[in-house]
């Protein structure tokens, strides 16, 4: 899931300082699961903003609405009849959702209330760890299911580097060396030959926004 963290309160307050009527739009998918931007977090932020602006004798009218997914037109449609009543929108969705919201209502200023942080896993309630950098060249089949791009400090496709030290990374002894973990796992699976395969570098240069059309979903050509 995409993991986000709420922006510092003062930053959010400052972003909307010139507006009087705000609609705070939450997202009921990833950011709701990671407790950053769902219905409850919208309510807490709105209460904070309401109180802070009243204390400044500059009250705002703030409302909240949480859509199922902000990265999906089907769900954004529910906002169409509401946004006209507001001066600006605050979004608690991930960066993709915020942009999709801004794209749908180009005449409304849209402000982010969260910082999108990583793609990660849920270790416990409220505790998330990064596992994927969406590099578009997955090598997990060769690395025993451990991502070297995410887990290695250098993001090496081919490792380990000279900094590996008794299972730890050279940057910090508490940081495990990803390539040591990969070695251990491949060794346990009797697949150490995989580590010898050389993966070519990812083409990060001149990268443009990527598009994916799943097989069977391409729109038919117009005739």
């Amino acid at each position, binding site marked *: 899931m995409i993991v986000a963290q709420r922006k510092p*309160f*003062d930053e959010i307050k400052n972003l909307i300082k010139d507006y009087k009527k705000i609609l*705070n739009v939450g997202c009921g998918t990833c950011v709701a699961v990671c407790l950053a931007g769902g219905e*409850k977090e*919208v*309510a*807490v932020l*709105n*209460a*904070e903003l*309401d*109180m*802070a602006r*009243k*204390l*400044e004798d500059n*009250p705002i009218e*703030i*409302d*909240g609405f949480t859509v199922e997914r902000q990265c999906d037109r089907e769900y954004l449609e529910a906002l169409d009849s509401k946004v006209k009543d507001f001066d600006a929108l605050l979004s608690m969705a991930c960066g993709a959702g915020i942009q999709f919201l801004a794209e749908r209502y180009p005449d409304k200023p849209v402000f982010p209330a969260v910082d999108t942080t990583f793609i990660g896993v849920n270790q416990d309630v409220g505790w998330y760890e990064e596992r994927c950098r969406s590099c578009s060249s997955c090598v997990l089949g060769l690395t025993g299911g451990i991502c070297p791009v995410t887990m290695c400090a250098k993001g090496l496709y081919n490792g380990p580097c000279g900094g590996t030290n008794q299972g730890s990374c050279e940057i910090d002894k508490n940081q495990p060396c990803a390539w040591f973990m990969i070695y251990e796992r491949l060794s346990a699976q009797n697949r150490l030959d995989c580590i010898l395969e050389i993966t070519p570098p990812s083409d990060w240069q001149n990268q443009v926004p990527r598009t994916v059309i799943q097989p069977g979903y391409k729109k038919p050509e117009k005739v």
Partner: protein
Amino acid sequence: MRLDYPVNVKIIRVPCTGKVDVMHLMRTIQMGADGAYVVGCLEGSCHYKQGNLRARERVMHVQKLLEEVGLEGDRVRMYNLSSGEGPTFAAYAKEMTEHIKKLGPNPLKKWSTATNKE
């Protein structure tokens, strides 16, 4: 026991302090209450194992949120006692009332008739 405690204290019963949510506490202050405190069982004695510990975390979180907003975080507090400690309950009510009196009224009180939709 017929113990006296300040009349300004209004009790809201919950099945366990683990039921008390951040929004419950935020809303009380937003609506103009001068203070709010959560009284839970003694730490380590929760019938539901961690309800009072969760409440403590939430109270601490609300204190931080109130500080961010520009209010005194200490308008919200957590107390712990066992169900057999009536005099301690009354003592905490007095202590909290005196503490809030020192802080003065909630500056949001003048807005308390206004409504917040979310």
